[in-house]
């Protein structure tokens, strides 16, 4: 049976299809300001990929910022639970997840069956999030995906002192003007981000195994820097870290559907 999960964030939207326990297909796209549009497009794409039609989907769960407003989703679950669920599916050994989203990051603790145990979310500040990295990348006129590899070449990381995402961009500009290499700036930014993530992790504590989800997980420099400050290995998932939320949603769709079926059959007899 086919289940779908759709995750609409502030920067990207993802959709995942699963067939019982098998990951069928996934799609990631840059989100439009309107979550419903993003969700609709990303879902159409993922269906097109598999040649399936929307009516083939038995149940769909949405998550992310626009979650309550997705017309074709029967139910919505918070991205916090979804990331836990998705990461656990990818690796049942996972107990702690750091999810760096577009405008906020979360540290999620799950138990031995993948259920949410505890979580902490950054206070209202986009410092240390995808948007923070995007701003920096834009200032350096590189694509955010180039930031990681570039930073690995850094030797003497610049000190990123400003707490404000906006002002960090001015700092970066000043570093460039003062002739600091992009590599050193990239590394400085990665380390600043790692420090912020570490502060957040400290609030709920860390239990191995630990993984990072969301686009930032693809930034090698950030991952390495975070491992260093945390003093914990970060294991890489066998799936695209960006689709973890949507996958979790699809898994919740399967659970929820089974639950409803059970209730229905109970009601029948």
């Amino acid at each position, binding site marked *: 049976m086919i289940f779908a999960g759709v995750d609409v964030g502030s920067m990207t939207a993802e959709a995942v299809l699963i067939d019982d326990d098998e990951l069928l297909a996934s799609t990631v796209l840059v989100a439009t300001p309107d979550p419903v549009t993003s969700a609709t497009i990303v879902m159409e794409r993922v269906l097109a990929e598999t040649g399936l039609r929307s009516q083939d989907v038995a149940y769909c769960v949405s998550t992310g910022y626009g979650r309550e407003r997705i017309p074709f989703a029967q139910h919505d679950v918070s991205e916090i639970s979804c990331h836990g669920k998705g990461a656990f599916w990818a690796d049942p050994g996972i107990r702690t997840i750091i999810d760096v989203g577009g405008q906020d990051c979360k540290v999620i603790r799950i138990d031995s069956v993948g259920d949410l145990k505890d979580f902490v979310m950054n206070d209202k500040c986009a410092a240390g999030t995808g948007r923070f990295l995007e701003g920096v990348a834009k200032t350096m006129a590189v694509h955010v995906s180039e930031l990681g590899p570039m930073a690995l070449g850094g030797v003497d990381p610049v000190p990123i*002192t*400003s*707490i404000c995402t906006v002002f960090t961009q001015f700092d970066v500009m000043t570093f460039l003007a003062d002739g600091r290499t992009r590599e050193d700036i990239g590394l400085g930014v990665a380390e600043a981000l790692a420090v912020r993530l570490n*502060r957040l992790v*400290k*609030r709920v504590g860390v239990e191995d195994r630990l993984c990072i989800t969301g686009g930032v997980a693809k930034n090698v420099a950030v991952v390495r820097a975070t491992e260093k400050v945390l003093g914990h290995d970060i294991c890489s998932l066998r799936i695209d870290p960006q689709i973890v939320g949507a996958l979790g949603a699809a898994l919740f769709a399967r659970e929820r559907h089974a639950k409803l079926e059970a209730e229905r059959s109970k009601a029948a007899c």
Partner: protein
Amino acid sequence: METQQGSLSRYDHFRKVDAVCDLFQMAIATGASSPADLDIPTLMGILPEYHASLVPQIYPEVIEAILKPKNRGATLSHMAAVKRYVTDLTTALDSGQPVIYNFAVTTPEIFLGMGLVPLCYELLPIYLAGAFVGGVDQDIDLTEDEGIPGHVCSAQKAPNGALMSGKMPMPDIMVKTTVPCNSSNMMYQWAQQQFGARVVVVDSPYYSNRRAFRYYVEEWKNMIASVERLTGHKLDEDRLRHHVELGNEQLKYYYGMQELRRRIPNPDPGMHRALDVAALYLCGANQEMVEYSRTCYQEARERADSGLGVVAPGRKEIRTVWTWGMTPHMLYLPDWLEERFGMSFLECGLSYMPSEVVGYVDTTSVDTMIEGLALRAFNMPMGRTGMTHADLMIEDFVKVAKAYHADAAVFSGHMACKHSWAVAKMLGDALQERAGIPSFKWETDLLDTRFTPHASAKAQLAEFFETLM
């Protein structure tokens, strides 16, 4: 340097403060008048390992400042006094004295009079933040990791982190005046909860009048009774008198310097404000502290008598009052501003104590001494203006600005200090309208160097002095 043992070596904050005293004294003893003249490799060679490991963490600007002729004497004597205090404290603790932390505005004399050596909860982090780069940032983080938010005052977050990491001994008793703020009161409750400390409250009434003071004196007597009960140490009249006399002598010079700072040019170096405040917190602690005050006074006096100021001769002096206070983690800032802009630092919210109100402690009897000390606490920085209508703080500063012939005011607002940020606007307007001076307000944190990095603080202040002066 004596071999370290007992709590001096056990608690990193004690050891560090003691070591930084050694280092500053050594640096000055070389006779160098600027870091350039210091033969670092040779010095490192003769330093004990621990001391050597600290050298790279010290602010170069601080070294530069303390080596200047105008700062040498004060620094030397202050360090000697602090070393003596740390020795007295650790000796007392090693001999089994309970660990008693007192809030800054409760005078040490009262505890010394009971044969106890108190430790001002906030004091050591203030010293360390001034000397070392990012001195207590990690301790602040430790506390925030427990869920204490950023807007709570770092003056308590730092020592709390130090307790968590074993850098200071666990408290048996903490004595807290409820002035000046909710933030500090909450953090003492937190310490009570986390460390099982017994918090003895000296309730500081709102208002600064006779009725409030009578109540306050009663609170002091109850506090003394509680501490006596909890420690078994009794207040001894002669011992109390001894320390009160030391304190009185110290105050004589403190008031004297306040007078000297009214002179044009101002002969008293700005970096001393921070040291003076620390000295005031330790008032009556030891003979060396009196020596420090005398040294500052006499040096300033000599400068004044020969018509010299702290600003280079021939240079226009910009006389400033710092309406919030100095910024401990930028200990060197006043010196830096004297050098760059000819600014002189007259008085600040953490140094102003009206001599005409406080005067000296009458040593006639235990009661007169308790009242006198209570009166000082009642009118000490924070104590005086922290818990009453804003008018008192405003009147004080308008008076100071006029009496000290100030050209400008600087409000280095500590972000956690909500009640003074609420007054900042009224204060600035009053100084503009009644003393005719502009105010520059900037945001900083008392101890956390990351809130406003030094570079940006310097840039903001430079802009102010360049544009207005």
